[in-house]
């Protein structure tokens, strides 16, 4: 798509955005609530098509896509959307929330959930939407647009989709002419966009993020451990650790030196079971190379020290490395978990510190309140139980921000004299 085509889309959407801004918000939210409800229905044609097309486009296996969608959409109800709007955009005598004429949305990665929600937000505010889908997921944005257009054709016409290579600077320039840009992507991508936007334009950035799991002593034994390990395995298996809510490492807060071994063993068992239900998707040669480097290096460390352990099945569908310390190491993704011992809270704090700036979620179990407070201090925007990391509620403060208001123009109306 040329820069001129992108600019034409922005121009056309401006007009539609102006018209959309005049529609009653309730009418728009009702339509979007119906859209969400339709996506929650497993027999909806768009969801069926997404489930059918996403595996080829992204490499995820079909059962993983189905499970990921089912679990994530379970709580994304129309009522939840209405409640979110009511809470964040409640009209009052003194404050008005309005959308920009056009909001540009730059998607990244291969997980459909962020894209689905990110597309609804600007529309809920009454803004037209220009979306550039991720190169790895050319499916979701198109299907979401179709679903909106079928339920509310006028709303559907307020969405434009553009495609251009990530290094097409001219097309990007035209794309960023929108009044507000919502960008998902790597830190360098976000930095590149931020540099190009004049200060007067709004940027809502969702850069690199990762998640962790932390288990306390009581979750390192018996059925509590089995439950926690099954949950972490599910969080890891869904979307093959490709999302910002995928745990990359598990910290075991326990003075018991055997506890990390128990956790590693339980995770290996749980990941083996997860593989039966939701097999790991395809892995590119580059990713496979990183996995092999890290796995084999850990095996050598295992031979050298005896304190490191590597648990991986034939075929390498997952890797669990029981580390000997909290040292930060590479995260190859694709179901590669490191288990770090944290004998006390200080060790846990030191272990998590290098991740803190990028921390999205922490799944935890068996922690005392002071340990939970420690996690709050890391800056993570979500603490939850293992097994639901990949299913954030609709009103999750993604990256510590409200869902809708960062994309809104907010006007405070003060009383005038007389």
């Amino acid at each position: 798509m040329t820069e001129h085509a992108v600019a034409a889309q922005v121009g056309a959407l401006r007009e539609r955005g102006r018209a959309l801004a005049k529609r009653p918000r309730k009418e728009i939210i009702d339509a979007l609530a119906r859209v969400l409800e339709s996506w929650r229905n497993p027999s909806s044609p768009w969801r069926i098509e997404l489930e059918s097309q996403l595996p080829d486009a992204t490499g995820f296996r079909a059962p993983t896509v189905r499970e990921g969608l089912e679990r994530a959409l379970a709580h994304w109800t129309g009522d939840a959307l209405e409640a979110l709007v009511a809470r964040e955009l409640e009209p009052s005598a003194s404050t008005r929330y309005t959308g920009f004429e056009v909001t540009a949305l730059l998607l990244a990665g291969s997980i459909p959930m962020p894209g689905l929600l990110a597309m609804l937000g600007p529309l809920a505010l009454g803004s037209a939407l220009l979306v550039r889908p991720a190169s790895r997921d050319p499916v979701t944005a198109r299907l979401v647009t179709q679903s909106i257009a079928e339920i509310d054709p006028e709303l559907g016409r307020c969405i434009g989709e553009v495609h251009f290579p990530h290094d097409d600077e001219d097309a990007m320039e035209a794309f960023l002419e929108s009044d507000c840009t919502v960008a998902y992507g790597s830190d360098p991508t976000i930095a590149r966009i931020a540099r190009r936007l004049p200060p007067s334009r709004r940027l809502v950035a969702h850069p690199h993020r990762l998640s962790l799991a932390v288990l306390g002593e009581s979750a390192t034994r018996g059925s509590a451990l089995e439950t926690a390990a099954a949950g972490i395995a599910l969080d890891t298996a869904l979307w093959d650790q490709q999302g910002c809510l995928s745990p990359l490492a598990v910290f075991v807060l326990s003075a018991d030196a055997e506890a990390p071994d128990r956790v590693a063993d339980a995770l290996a068992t749980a990941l083996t079971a997860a593989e039966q239900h939701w097999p790991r998707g395809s892995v590119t040669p580059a990713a496979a190379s990183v996995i092999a480097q890290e796995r084999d290096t850990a095996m050598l460390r295992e031979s050298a020290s005896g304190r490191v352990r590597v648990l991986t099945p034939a075929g390498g569908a997952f890797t669990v490395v029981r580390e000997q310390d909290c040292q930060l190491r590479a995260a190859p993704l694709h179901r590669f978990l490191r288990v770090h011992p944290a004998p006390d809270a200080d060790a846990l704090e030191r272990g998590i510190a290098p991740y803190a700036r990028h921390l999205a979620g922490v799944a935890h179990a068996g922690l005392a309140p002071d340990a939970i407070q420690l996690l709050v201090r890391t800056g993570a925007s979500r603490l939850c139980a293992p097994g639901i990391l990949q299913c954030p509620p609709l009103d999750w403060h993604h990256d510590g921000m409200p869902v809708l208001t960062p994309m809104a123009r907010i006007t405070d109306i003060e009383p005038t004299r007389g």
Partner: protein
Amino acid sequence: MTGDPRRRLLDEAVLTWMREDPWCDDEARFDALAHELFAFQFEHCAPYRGFCRNRGVDPSSIASWHEIPCVPTGAFKELTLTSFPPAETRHVFRTSGTSTTSRGSLHLDTLALYEASLLPTFRFHLLPDLPAAGRVRIEVLAPPPEEASDSSLSHMFGVAIAKLGSEASRYAVLRGSLDTEALRVRLERDVEAEEPILLCGTAFGFVHFLEYLEEHGDFLRLPAGTHLMETGGFKGRSRELPREELYAELEARLGVPAECVVNQYGMTELGSQFYDSVLRQPQRPRRKLGPPWVRARIVDPESGRPLAPGEIGSIAIFDLANTGSVCAIQTADLGRAIEDGFEVLGREPEAEARGCSIAADVLLAGVGS
């Protein structure tokens, strides 16, 4: 030379091969030496022995050198992998460590094999027309060995200049910086003298020098017959340049055509190097070739299974020059086989595809900083 008699015999056998002229590419000889070397390293390198045993491999279980387990290059960042007592370490080469938190290191008890391997290969691929006792001016865009004693690359250039370089050979990187002005003056003298030279250095060093020439509007036409060797990538550097663009700029600014530019593929963890075939076999596809005492295979990264020609996989290298450490190395680079050699495709960061999740060296470079 090492004190272990078995190791001495191995070293001597490999050194004998390295000294032969012309080279003899003998698969049976390679296989026999690789077997012996694997057995020796299995016995003397404890972490490697455990690694092999975990895979159910020992010297008696392998039918061919293809089955020798490869150690990942990343392991050299974590462990000291030697097949000699640590007290006998005489030299340590370290990786540049430009984009990760730790540096890999290769511990050596002798430099004899390293030097015996590098010199004939360097000469074979970069100076194919140099007479037997001939010398050439070598200009190096890298620091001299005395300023970078742990750099295997600087050591290589030091040996090359000592054995093949004329008295006018120079290093352009001194006290940590590239002296662009002095380099330009020397190259202008080469142009006037119409004497071809060998210009060697890191890819990033050449980019730096090209930027200098561009800023000053300079174009040099180095004499016909000048060869240029570049090596290394741009990881962790401020500017990256695709190789095709680099070669086009080298031709435009220095007058060295792409067919005279040779990329060297080597790494600290290896005793031998690979070079582009362009000067030796200009009519055939550009590909990496090494001497007969080193073999490269393209393998499935996760399983180690060999891949068909053209398929993309990890580059695994078996280097008989690595008698003091481990001879079988799995690199972090991707490549594909081309005829009797291979092409290096790099590491493909995948940042665009990955989206907002984070992984691998991004985690270490970004989060860890």
